[in-house]
């Protein structure tokens, strides 16, 4: 089934605080072991987004975008 939402993380902005992981009611975001070039560990989208947009709104680094519709 196609995802209803796309969650994009701008990895150059992310600082690995994982507030998005904390806030997501669908456990759609998880910690990963990947780091960005500044050395911060990145979250990853694991699917299942319900479109509540809480991650988008809580991200202190404006790094998340939730779009309706699956990945283009």
């Amino acid at each position, binding site marked *: 089934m196609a995802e209803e939402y796309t969650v994009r993380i701008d990895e150059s902005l992310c*600082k690995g605080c994982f507030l998005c992981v904390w806030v997501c009611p669908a456990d759609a975001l998880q910690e990963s072991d990947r780091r960005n070039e*500044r*050395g*911060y560990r990145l979250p990853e989208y694991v699917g299942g987004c319900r479109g509540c947009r809480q991650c988008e709104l809580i991200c202190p680094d404006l790094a998340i975008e939730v779009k309706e519709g699956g990945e283009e």
Partner: protein
Amino acid sequence: MKREVRISGFGGQGIVLAGVVLGRAAAVYEEYNAVQTQSYGPEARGGASRSDVIISDEEIMYPYVREPDYLVAMSQEAYDKYAPEVKEDGLIVYDSTLVEPHRDDDVEHVGVPATKLAEEELGRRIVANMVILGALRELTDLVSEEALKRAVEDAVPPGTEEINVKAVELGARGVRE
């Protein structure tokens, strides 16, 4: 004798503490003069951390490091930024767990897997700074091992003296072997 040392990495690695311990060892437990300075302010945010030490048997007036004799690099960013400034006959000690060295002239490089050693041998990633400091000392003889250990005991949080001293020894062994 006058040596300029730069210790660098990111926040949370105890970079500043490493510099303080080194300076203390030289100034309190040896007959040297030592000046430690560090980066403050916005440039010190967002991860980067730097601690400079000058050790000399004469009075140190101008207190800032201009061209390090020795660089300790505990992050790639720090290595990239500071490696080019090291003197040609200097030495770079890097944490090989985290840093991929690439300066291609003949400056001496020594890799120490400090973070890995700290984690695996001592179970405490946080003491990687002392591991690498132990290695630096072993390689350069900047201060005596005794002086360094006493400085460590003074400067680390109470209750962690032992593990930190062990870390210094671990680092020394790492490069001796």
